[in-house]
């Protein structure tokens, strides 16, 4: 019997799940390896039984979500946090930068009381996570790599060096040479410098490396006459949940 795999989404845009559908030809090979029993984006079937692999997208932002993820964890042999919302809290983490009540009123206005909410947490701050696929959206080849490792039962650690490493290996002209700032030096690699290959800045979607030189990075960014507040905003766009816990 092929391993049973299911996809679940919490607070997110579901764009990372869409990336699976975008795998193209590789998807057919992936489907030979696993039996997809639940995947809302592409099929209507549901599965309530035990799972070999749960792929979880999105952050945990409500009490119901906590209960739901705990149940998913309980019936899954392996849990993969999938996409930055799940691995590091992602953009949802911005919520944590203001008091909950205030945020609730800003978003839901007079109906605020009907939308109970809790601080945003990445999945591993609620249940145990076995594998991580960072990114907003995830980089499909990395997902395949993680899936292969999960199926083989071997560990798979995302890189803990800067996006610059992959960017240099791809021999891109550095954005700093173009007079533009880039979060590559403090952002965890693993996307094959997807954005900078295409002339964009790295906006840090995979989260900070485990030991970033924040002070040094601010000095570098400050040289480009960007207001400090903007620098902090840039760095915390994806990383606001970071203070609450550590992610490998």
């Amino acid at each position, binding site marked *: 019997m092929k391993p049973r795999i299911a996809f679940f989404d919490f607070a997110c845009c579901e764009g990372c799940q869409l990336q699976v559908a975008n795998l193209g030809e590789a998807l057919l090979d992936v489907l030979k390896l696993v039996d997809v029993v639940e995947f809302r984006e592409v099929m209507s079937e549901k599965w309530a039984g035990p799972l070999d692999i749960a792929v979880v997208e999105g952050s945990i932002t409500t009490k119901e979500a906590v209960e739901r993820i705990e149940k998913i964890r309980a019936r899954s042999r392996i849990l993969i946090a999938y996409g930055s919302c799940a691995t590091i809290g992602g953009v949802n983490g911005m919520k944590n930068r203001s008091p909950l009540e205030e945020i609730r009123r800003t978003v839901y206005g007079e109906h605020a009381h009907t939308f109970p909410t809790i601080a945003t947490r990445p999945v591993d701050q609620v249940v145990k996570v076995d594998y991580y696929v960072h990114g907003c959206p995830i980089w499909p080849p990395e997902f*395949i790599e993680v899936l*292969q490792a999960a199926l083989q039962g071997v560990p798979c650690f995302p890189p803990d060096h800067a996006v610059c490493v992959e960017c240099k290996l791809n021999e*891109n*002209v550095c954005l700093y040479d*173009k007079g533009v700032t880039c979060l590559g030096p403090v952002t965890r690699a693993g996307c094959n410098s997807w954005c900078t290959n295409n002339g964009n800045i790295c906006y840090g979607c995979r989260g900070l490396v485990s030991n970033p030189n924040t002070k040094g*990075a601010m000095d570098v960014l400050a040289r480009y006459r960007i207001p400090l507040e903007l620098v902090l905003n840039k760095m915390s766009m994806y990383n606001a949940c970071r203070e609450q816990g550590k992610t490998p």
Partner: protein
Amino acid sequence: MRYVTIPADKMADYITALARRQKVVAPVEKGKGQFAFEPISEGREATLTYIPTILPPKKFFMPQYETLLEYDLHEGQKMQAVVELEEMVLFGVHTCDLAGIACLNTVFSDRPKDLNYLIRKNKIVIIGLECVAYCDEYASCALMNNHLPNGGYDLFLTPLGDRYIGHVNTYIGDSLVEEGGFFRDATGADFAALEEVRRRKREVFHDEVPIDLDEIPRIFAHSLRTTIWKEIGDRCLSCGNCTNVCPTCYCFDIVDKPNLDLKSGRRIRVWDSCQNERFAKIAGGESFRKERSSRKRHRFFRKFRYPVDRFGKFFCTGCGRCSRTCMARINLKETLAQLAREYV
């Protein structure tokens, strides 16, 4: 010893003629004053006045990602060593980069010999190109004695204004200058012009850092505990650029890349760097160089001290790439000058 010349306005045609017969890689403009060695099919795609390319020619000798082995576990355990070689002519290599290739040759010829490297290297034909002026303010090639040709090429070209003079260094170099009848043998006037270029060069190329090369071993013998490492470590972002662009940094990691059948796959080597967080991490999570200051020190010691003890040569070519690429503006010439000041 054979010298030849070629008119400057025939150079593009000559490169085109070479590219008709084999793969030619040459410096190509990438915008924002940056260059890269890339395959070309026409001579006019190449730029013969260029500052050191983003990545040095090492990317052809030890590619960023290189397959070393293919495995297949469908029936038993089959493994096949692989050498991904590529015949090519590397056109327009500056003397600093020739020195970089010489360093890599030294390392990979040391025991245990690296067969992948040595086989690849034998398939690469090298045409050198002399700088008659500094590339930019980051260069320290004269300090490192790499501003003049010192072997390591098949043919070496020096611009003499309206023509290039070429030094033919190997049999392959001989066949290179036979191509298409572009070259003729050099005469007395050509040698005089070459002598004049070198004389002028000696006037310009010197003292990029106010120290002597002979002093460097002594300076580094005393710089283990200086606060300079902490100072630059505090600024360093550990982006790894300085090592990836360095023509003499050769550290790599080995990784298995399974195919989707999970039974077969490739074992590859990929560039690694002492600036990366996990480089010196071992089982249990301990890291030998946790502090950025110790990583920065390691990089400098890996250029100016350890290889001197081991191979009797410096592993800095003076190309300036590390300083050029550093967004934190950690500058090799400044650091050397600082170390020297502290020691004196």
